[in-house]
């Protein structure tokens, strides 16, 4: 009861401050189990209710029991985000959770999470490539990251400087239905000295044509005069880890058969354990040329 009153999600100009504290976010133990259907595959995960810092911040949620890939076409990525229209996406779930300081001292942090199904648009499909092949999947991820982040540059006189840097902290995880990996993509400061605002990405394939990206972004709002964080950010990371650890994949029988077939052929179903940061920015030529180029794997 005291905690309920102490951590009310309120903020007034007279009560807000940046005193050091441990902010409180949503209660994970009370979170719902959610099942997302994606072309027959099921992704199970446990996520709290949407509770953003301001009510107009939107969530996305496909109707429970509804298969998001049943009739829906993949949406094109915004032209401001990707230089080409080769990729499409669908969002079954996106939520934001705010972390509040005590006694109405204000919102200290926010964790945003999005589950996205990503695939090639049919007119740009990779022919004769299965996402269930680890080497092919690595290539797909390279291509996706290049299209998504690699072409972004700084503006004005600094157009030779990339805006993003990644992937870093590449890590493969055991105990999951298919091979998978997590990594981070960071914003890079103009003088290249600092990396910040990492996007935590988790990739795994769900069929021969689609893969899932679970993305997390942590927004930290409260800093002291020296520019250091004025709160303990572990609750944010803890919620992210708890959600991440609750993700479970159940492949549809056809996809499972398909996966097993490739497994029988090549034996080693593992992604590379080392993944060096990509060379960004990619030139305009690179980003348009190597489309649907299945020879790219051999390179």
């Amino acid at each position, binding site marked *: 009861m005291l905690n309920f009153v102490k951590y009310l999600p309120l903020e007034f100009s007279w009560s807000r401050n940046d005193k050091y504290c441990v902010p409180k976010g949503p209660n994970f133990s009370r979170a719902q189990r959610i099942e997302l259907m994606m072309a027959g595959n099921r992704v199970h995960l446990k996520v709290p209710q949407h509770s953003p810092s301001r009510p107009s911040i939107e969530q996305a949620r496909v109707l429970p029991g509804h298969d998001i890939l049943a009739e829906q076409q993949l949406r094109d990525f915004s032209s*401001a985000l990707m230089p080409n229209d080769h990729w499409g996406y669908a969002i079954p779930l996106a939520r934001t959770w705010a972390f509040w300081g005590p006694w109405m001292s204000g919102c200290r942090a926010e964790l945003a999470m999005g589950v996205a199904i990503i695939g090639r648009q049919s007119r740009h499909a990779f022919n004769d490539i299965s996402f269930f092949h680890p080497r092919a999947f690595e290539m797909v991820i390279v291509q996706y990251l290049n299209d998504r982040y690699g072409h972004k540059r700084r503006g004005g006189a600094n157009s030779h400087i990339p805006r993003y840097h990644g992937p870093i902290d590449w890590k493969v995880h055991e105990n999951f239905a298919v091979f998978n990996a997590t990594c981070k993509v960071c914003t890079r400061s103009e003088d290249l000295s600092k990396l910040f605002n990492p996007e935590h990405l988790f990739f795994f394939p769900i069929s021969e044509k689609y893969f899932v990206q679970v993305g997390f972004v942590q927004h930290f709002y409260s800093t002291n005069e020296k520019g250091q964080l004025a709160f303990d950010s572990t609750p944010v990371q803890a919620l992210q880890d708890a959600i991440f650890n609750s993700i479970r994949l159940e492949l549809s029988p056809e996809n499972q058969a398909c996966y097993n077939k490739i497994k029988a052929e090549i034996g080693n179903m593992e992604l590379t354990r080392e993944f060096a940061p990509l060379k960004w920015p990619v030139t305009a030529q690179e980003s348009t040329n190597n489309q649907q180029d299945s020879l790219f794997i051999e390179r």
Partner: protein
Amino acid sequence: MEQDYPIIAGKAAGRKVSINPALHPAYQRLEQAALRGNHWASIAVRELNALTSGVVGKNNVYIRPYGPKDAAGNTGYIVFLPGLKATLYPTVLGSYCVTDLVLNANYFEATADEESGKRTGLYRVIPEGAIETWKTEYVEDGNIEAKNGRLVVIADSGYKSASNAARTIVPRAMEFPQVPEITVLQEGCDLHFTAGQKQLGGMIRYNPLSLDSSRGSALHLATTMEQARTLKNVIWAADQGGSAVLTQAMQILANKGVTLKSHTAYLYKPRTSPAAALKLAHKLELSLGKSFANTGWDPQGALSQLSVAGRRLNNSNDRYNKAYHTHAWINGLAKAAGPIGLGSGAAAAMGVSIPMIGGIVAAISGGSVVYALGQSLVEDLRTKFKR
């Protein structure tokens, strides 16, 4: 003694601008940032150099008189620029001395508050989709995306970060009149963000031109607007206290004589006077839709809007007409009615006699409105209520 002060501008000609030696290193940092190619540092240095032509006639949005006049009739000045605030005092022979320079050092560094997302300036808002609905990227040179019909949202201060502001404001900005919702969903928009703890404006600080905390940001926005003047149909939409920044920026442009033909502006729940913004919008030759500001249930806003109705009716760039005037007038009166003491809004609109309404309107607005009102009442009320 002041002759020994380092001179930062006007060595060869014009009025000398010297600086307190203690502040000189800070100024040198600013100059170095300008040499490195920092857009905003060069603007700041240019504006400080412009003081060599004196400050007469520069009592404008970002150069403000400050302190009492001396015997020669000179006063001190404060110069508000993006990322810095300088105080100048007149010295002998009409030269000026910078006695105080508050530099937000981070602002001109390369990393520059971008990490915390609290840097004042222009951001691209991109419909990201895969993780969050809207993603922001800082724009170094402050140019909006070179597309006709681009939406630029001017945010209030008081948001936690530019990203937080974008995710909060852009969903409702898509529903403003004249905003092409689908285009914004596909291509995104631009956001002008002002860092600060508190919201701008409010019932007491209702005059946008007297607010100090938004002046630097306004100069930043004015630069952005001026650079965008070759584009067509740009929509400048201010959300809440963003109206203060937009009004001040329009004042800077009006002083410079810049016009923004075919651009339009809109205020959503402005926390400063929409009337002040409207006068400047007409000066900049903006094309305005029928609804220029949504003041919600704010009686101050409704009164302020009614007070410029006559001006709007007479302007040819303005879509405001008599039919809409009646509509807005009844709505506005209904909202203003409570504080004036007329009882419920419905009673005011339906049952009050015309001379009485005329009296109220005359009390709150210019004569042309009464005339227009008479006209529109004859035209509209008869058909609407007595049919």
